[in-house]
């Protein structure tokens, strides 16, 4: 049986049916990891021994009927900015190279309660700052569809691991598109839920008012199942929301009749690659043919989203990252004479250039004399963007948009021009500023065979609508594209 190609839910069913043991499921992951990890580099660390031990425990709980859920015994990978008790958590930074948390993130605990087996921590842009997973201290992750290209970021490791069949699903985090954009680049499904749906406790903060954890997986069913499992009201996170409607799998219905979908004209104009635009509009046609009402409209304020986002996210980051100072944990410089020198050298040596850039930007916009002109103005812009979405959702059930203006760029082509890289976040960051849910699903490929993702954006707490539309699209289309690792496998079989 080819376990690695199964989705999480498919694998979970086989485990419940005793067709597959948890150990076999875990071993299948490590077999594939052994095969491809050298090329892809999805992981910062792997916990094979712990995973196999945990597999035995989970198997017992499945056998005695304690664990009956869809994710029981299914392996998972966790982005390395989520704390895992006793397991190094680096944020792909040198400064946390030796940091071992004493507790696990609430989202990870929720998965573990459901019987998930964590196999490793995935690579990311350092402190989730970047769109390519190239800013990691532990080397870049490569796109499993074409190793010369980036997987996107910052959850590039999670998305690549899923696309390269190293693991059925993974957790990512999304501050400005960090789940949706790499999902799009890697041809998988990823959702950023409404702000407050998944507890941020144990997620090492980048931009606290924007960060959300979400799943990345190979289909919509998996995403809904995982989100249902990790969503919780957590008293430890003051921004956590108490929701009664987290039974997301109930929305997996093949029906979009009467759904009103808005297409923002301002998202489909200049800057959007034709090769991305085409498959997305074709996908819109699929939904239209299935009975959805599709209409173009002007969302407005699009060009203000990027500056507002980079001001707010960097401001929060500059403060959030100040705790990494070499005093209590993490990297500390070797030679120093006094406290301030220790601080300076530790941070100069411990942080990479993109992180430093954002700390400087954030410190600047918060400094006295500039606060009103930058930070306050950005907050006002954020409020206006939320208003623009509010009026859109007064008319539409959801907004259909690209997840990124292009397919995955080549390795090494992005970091030299940060402004250009920031502009690549144009379709995703407004969603974070407004706290909305957004899902990215694969809808096609460009001429080079790189995947294209479509983004569906919903009003706050309307994940179910997104799941329903995405699921319908998935039902109506055949998945015609596979990452090179599916192909390799197929080729291998033929040879045999």
């Amino acid at each position, binding site marked *: 049986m080819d376990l690695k190609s199964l989705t999480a839910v498919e694998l979970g069913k086989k485990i419940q049916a005793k067709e597959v043991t948890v150990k076999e499921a875990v071993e299948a992951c490590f077999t594939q990891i052994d095969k491809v990890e050298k090329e892809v580099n999805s992981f910062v660390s792997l916990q094979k021994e712990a995973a196999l031990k945990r597999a035995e425990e989970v198997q017992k709980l499945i056998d005695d009927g304690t664990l009956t859920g869809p994710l029981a015994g299914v392996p998972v990978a966790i982005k390395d900015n*989520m*704390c895992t008790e006793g397991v190094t*958590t680096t*944020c792909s930074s040198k400064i*946390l190279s030796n*940091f071992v*948390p*004493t*507790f696990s*993130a609430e989202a990870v605990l929720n998965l573990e309660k459901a019987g998930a087996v964590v196999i490793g921590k995935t690579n990311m842009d350092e402190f989730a700052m970047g769109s390519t997973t190239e800013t990691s201290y532990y080397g870049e992750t490569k796109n499993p569809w074409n190793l010369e290209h980036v997987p996107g970021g910052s959850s590039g490791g999670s998305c690549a691991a899923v696309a390269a069949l190293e693991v059925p699903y993974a957790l990512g985090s999304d501050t400005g598109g960090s789940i949706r954009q790499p999902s799009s680049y890697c041809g998988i499904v990823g959702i950023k839920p409404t702000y407050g749906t998944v507890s*941020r*406790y*144990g*997620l*090492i*903060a980048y*931009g*606290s*008012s924007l960060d959300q954890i979400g799943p990345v997986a190979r289909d919509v069913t998996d995403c809904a199942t995982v989100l249902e499992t990790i969503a919780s009201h957590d*008293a*430890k*996170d*003051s*921004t956590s929301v108490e929701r009664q409607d987290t039974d997301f799998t109930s929305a997996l219905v093949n029906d979009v009749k009467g759904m009103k979908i808005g297409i923002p004209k301002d998202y489909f104009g200049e800057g959007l690659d034709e090769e991305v635009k085409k498959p997305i509009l074709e996908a819109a046609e699929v939904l239209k043919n299935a009975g959805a009402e599709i209409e173009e409209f002007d969302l407005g304020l699009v060009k203000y989203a990027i500056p507002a986002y980079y001001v707010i996210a960097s*401001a*929060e980051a*500059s*403060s959030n990252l*100040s*705790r*990494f*100072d070499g*005093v*209590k*944990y993490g990297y500390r410089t070797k030679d120093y004479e006094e*406290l*301030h020198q220790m*601080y300076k050298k530790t941070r100069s040596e411990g942080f990479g250039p993109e992180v430093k850039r954002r700390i400087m930007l954030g*410190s600047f916009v*918060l*400094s*006295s004399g500039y*606060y009103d002109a930058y*930070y306050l103005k950005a907050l006002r812009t954020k409020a206006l963007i939320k208003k623009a979405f509010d009026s859109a959702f007064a008319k539409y059930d959801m907004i259909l948009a690209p997840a990124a203006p292009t397919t995955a760029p080549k390795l090494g082509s992005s970091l030299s021009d940060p402004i250009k890289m920031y502009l690549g976040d144009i379709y995703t960051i407004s969603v974070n500023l407004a706290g909305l849910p957004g899902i990215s699903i694969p809808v096609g490929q460009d001429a080079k065979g790189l995947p294209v993702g479509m983004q569906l954006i919903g009003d706050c707490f309307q994940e179910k609508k997104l799941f329903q539309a995405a699921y319908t699209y998935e039902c109506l289309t055949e998945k015609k594209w596979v990452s090179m690792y599916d192909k390799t496998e197929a080729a291998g079989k033929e040879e045999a």
Partner: protein
Amino acid sequence: MSRQYETVIGLEVHVELATKTKIFCGCSTAFGGAPNTHTCPVCTGMPGSLPVLNKKVVEYAMAVGLATNCKITQVCKFDRKNYFYPDNPQNYQISQLYLPIARDGYVEIEVGEQKKKVRIHEMHMEEDAGKLIHDEWEDCSLVDYNRSGVPLIEIVSEPDMRSADEVIAYLEKLRMICQYLGASDCKLQEGSMRADVNLSIREVGASEFGTRTEMKNLNSFKAITHAIEGERQRQIELIEEGKKVIQETRRWDDNKEYSYAMRSKEDAQDYRYFPEPDLVPIVISDEWIQKIKDQQPELRNEKLARYEKDYDIPRYDAEIITGTKKMADLFEATCAICNKPKKVSNWLMVETMRLLNENGQEPADIKFSPENLAKLIELADAGTINSSVAKEVFEKVFAEDVDPEKYVEDHGLKTVNDEGALRTLAEEVIAKNPKAVEDFKGGKEKALGALVGQIMKAMKGKANPGMVNELLREMLK
């Protein structure tokens, strides 16, 4: 001196709130404790941890705000104050800048016969920092985060005070209010009340303020008084010499009785305040404010009036007893048990105050229970023990909160009322002291005292002196 100067003082007072747990986590706020034992990922600022506001902090802050006539900010928020220092585990302090919990209040102070209002500019909630300890032996610094996250309110006054006496009166008033509300014990030595003094001088009659300095590290009322006097003199000298006062933060050294300027690095900071994104705004409803008002305990002035009326004790006694919440509580609780207000008041006013003074303690340090004081009063009142024994027993009650009944029993301190035994003893004493007997019979009243004294001595002070007196008179008729 040709010119007359007026001192202008405003205070920033930090008060540690009496919550059992810290402001953003469930760790204990207990004073002392081995280093880093009252800590968790939140109050040590570990990555991934998040703060959750302790509602009791808001309630105490509201109570103090209302008792000082402030307006409560009904949508208030926390902000981050960013600065690097190892006692500050996240390198930012969660405080309030833009929307503090309370604003625009005042308290009334009395200095001599003069009454005066001191206005409160604002009051905000914040977290305390940890404690840095320098290990001279190892030549390294260590941090104890037990205090990190202990809730504080900072009360910022307007520059309305003009003398050290007014400052002390203001602080005493704040302390009394906080103690009455149960919001804080306000112990200066333990740092649960701290004051920074902003001081400037100007010529009498001038309308503009002078340049002010801020003085830190003032750990007692005495230090505050000295520091104000010292800083006033320093500024006058500067101005008299034609120099300028520089706006700066100065650290008071109470041993040297001198303040010195802190390095500009420590002073000139840009804290880059911004709204704390990990905490949601606190929305305070009218109902919540009303609830806090309803819960507000009786404050001093109300108590004073009631004591005179209900307990019928003199104004002077009532003033001393209501001077601290601890005394007032003890008084009321003891009266509730024995219903002898005048006697309770006497024990508190005389013996308790004497022992506190002798031990260099404050009323807040009183350890004995109202039950045991009441028992003692009953024992003395019933004549079970005589007054000198009662004082002796009270010292034990004061020091160790012993049960007076048990103590008297165990130590055989009961007054001897056994007439037969006393009569036998009296006969012996009369026989042994013919001179004194003769003197008494000859009209020297004093001589009786000597005889009584001998009997008391023989009884180790436990005899009922009244009974001995009567007995002797009867026998010597």
